[in-house]
C-alpha cells in the first residue's frame, strides 16, 4: 500500500445516501418480519373498530365512520414505524451494536448519520402509508384519486415522528424509559389528533391544543386527500407539513451531536 494521493471528500448528499442505503440493506434482510406488524395493525384496526363501531357511530363529520378513520390509519402506520425505529432502533444502534461509532469513524459525521436516518425513516413512512392506502382501497373507503399523495404526507409524518423518537433515544437512561415515550407521548398524540373523532368534539381549549400537536395537520391533509373534500385548512397544513418535520429534525440531529461527540 503505497502512500496514496489524498482522495476527495464525499459530498454531504453522497454520505447521507450511503447511510440511507445502509438502513435499507439491513432492513431489507428482515423485511417480512419487520413489515408484518406495520401492515397488519391498521388492517386489524379497520376490521375490529371499523366494522364493530362503524354501525354504532353511523356518520362522523359528515362521512361514514370507516371513511373518516381510513386516512388516519395510513398516518398511524407512518407514526409507528418511525417512532419505534428512531427510539428503540436508535438506542440499540447506539448503546448495544455501536453502529454509529462505526459510521462516524469515516468521513461521515453525526449530521450525515441522522439526516440519512431520518430520510430513511421517511421512506418507510412513505412505503407503509402507501401499503395501507392500497389495502384500504379494497374496503371502498378511498373516495378520491388525490389519495395517491397520502404516502408523501406519510413521508413527512415519519420524519417528524422519527425526530421525536431521536429525542427520546437521546434522553432515556435505560430501555424501560421508552415506555414514557410510547405511552406518554405517542399514544396521546395519536388519540387526540383527529384519528378516531374530529378534534372539534373536544372541549374548546383542548381542541386548540390538539390542533397544535404535530400529528393533527398530517391527518387533516390525508383526510382531504382520501375524501377529496378540501377545506381552507389546506393553506396552513401544507406549509406546516413541509417545514415542521425538518425543524424537529434539525433539533433532533443537533441533540444527537451533543450525545455522540463528547
Amino acid at each position, binding site marked *: *500500500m*503505497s*502512500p*496514496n494521493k*489524498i*482522495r*476527495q*471528500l*464525499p*459530498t454531504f448528499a*453522497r*454520505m447521507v445516501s*450511503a*447511510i440511507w*442505503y*445502509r438502513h435499507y*440493506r*439491513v432492513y431489507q*434482510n*428482515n423485511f417480512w418480519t419487520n413489515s408484518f406488524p406495520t401492515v397488519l395493525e391498521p388492517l386489524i384496526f379497520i376490521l375490529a373498530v371499523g366494522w364493530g363501531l362503524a354501525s354504532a357511530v353511523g356518520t362522523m363529520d359528515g362521512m361514514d365512520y370507516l371513511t373518516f378513520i381510513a386516512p388516519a390509519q395510513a398516518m398511524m402506520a407512518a407514526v409507528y414505524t418511525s417512532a419505534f425505529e428512531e427510539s428503540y432502533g436508535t438506542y440499540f444502534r447506539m448503546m448495544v*451494536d*455501536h*453502529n454509529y*461509532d*462505526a*459510521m*462516524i*469513524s*469515516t*468521513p*461521515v*459525521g453525526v449530521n450525515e448519520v441522522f439526516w440519512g436516518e431520518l430520510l430513511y425513516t421517511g421512506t418507510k413512512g412513505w412505503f407503509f402509508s402507501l401499503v395501507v392506502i392500497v389495502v384500504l382501497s379494497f374496503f371502498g373507503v378511498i373516495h378520491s384519486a388525490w389519495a395517491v399523495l397520502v404516502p408523501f404526507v406519510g413521508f413527512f409524518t415519519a420524519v417528524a415522528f422519527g425526530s421525536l423518537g431521536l429525542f427520546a433515544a437521546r434522553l432515556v437512561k435505560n430501555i424501560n424509559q421508552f415506555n414514557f415515550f410510547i405511552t406518554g407521548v405517542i399514544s396521546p398524540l395519536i388519540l387526540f389528533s383527529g384519528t378516531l373523532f374530529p378534534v372539534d368534539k373536544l372541549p374548546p381549549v383542548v381542541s386548540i391544543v390538539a390542533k397544535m400537536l404535530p400529528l393533527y395537520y398530517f391527518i387533516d391533509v390525508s383526510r382531504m386527500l382520501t375524501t377529496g373534500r378540501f377545506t381552507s385548512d389546506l393553506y396552513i397544513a401544507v406549509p406546516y407539513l413541509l417545514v415542521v418535520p425538518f425543524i424537529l429534525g434539525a433539533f433532533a440531529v443537533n441533540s444527537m451531536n451533543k450525545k*455522540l*461527540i*463528547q
Partner: protein
Amino acid sequence: MPTDSLIEARQLVKNYDDFRAVDGVDFHVRPGECFGFLGPNGAGKSTLMKMIYCFSPRGGGELSIFGLDPDKKASEIKNRLGVVAQTDNLDEDITVTQNLQIYSGYFGFSRKQIQPKIDELLAFMSLESKAHAGIRQLSGGMKRRLVIARALLNDPDLLILDEPTTGLDPQVRHLIWAKLRELKTQGVTILLTTHYMEEAQELCDRLLVLDKGKVLSLGRPEELVKNNLHPYVLELPVAKKSEIQIPPSIQLETHGDKLFLFSDTPSELEKIALPFQGQFRIRTTGLEDLFLKLTGRDLHESE
C-alpha cells in the same frame, strides 16, 4: 504546524466534568512507525484515541493530525484514517461482503469500484470463504479480522487500533499480530492501545506509557526497560522477605504477594535464591516489570 509527523500532540488535556482523563500529554507519531499507548484500564488511552479519531474534542493543548485541526477538519482527517474500535461494531444482520460495501460507501466508493479491494482484503485476512456468510456465523477472531479489513478499505495513511486483541485466544492474537506486522512492512503507520505487554513488545516501535492521564515514559520498548531497570530479576514469595539478606546493589520491590529483586548479574540473584528451591524464578526484566515500577500497580487492576 509545519511537521513531518502524522500526529503532533502538545500538552493535550481532556476533562469529563471534574475528572481529568488526559492531563498534559505530549507525543508525535512518525510516518511508517507503529506507536503504542500502554497503560492500565482508566489510564486515558481510549480517550486519547477518541480525540485522535475526532470523537472527542480536546479540552486544552494542541493536536494536529496530518497537519489538520480535528476540531475543524474532522471529515478530512477521518477520510484518511482506518479505525478499529474496541468493540466489533459490525452490522450483524447483513453479510461480510455487504458490511464492507456499505462501509466503503461512507468514503464515497461505489460498490462496483470497491469490489476488487474487498476481494483483496478478504484474501489478506484469510476470510475469502466467509465472503457471503452472515456476521453471526463468524468467530470472535474472524470478526476482529473483518473489522481490521474494513478499516483498510480506504487505504488509510494511519491505522488506529484500540485494544486490537483483547478477549481473543492466543492463536488468533498471533495471527492478528502477523497481519499487522505485514501491514507495517507495506508502510502503513499504526497507532494502537493495549494493556498487553506482549503485544506492545511484539508490535510497537515506540511506546507511550500512561497512567492516570499522564505520560510516565516514552521511547523504544527495549530502551525503556534498559533505562529504568536492571537486566535481571528474581521473584520470590513475599513471605520469604524476613529470611533473606539483601546486598545494597540489589533493588527490591513488592507487588501483590511477590517480592522482586533486581540486579545486574544473575549470579548475585542465584546466591539469594539458593535456599528456596522450587519457589523462585530468575529471568530477564521486561516491560511488565517496567510497568509495575512506573505505575506501582498491576496492569489489569482498574480503578
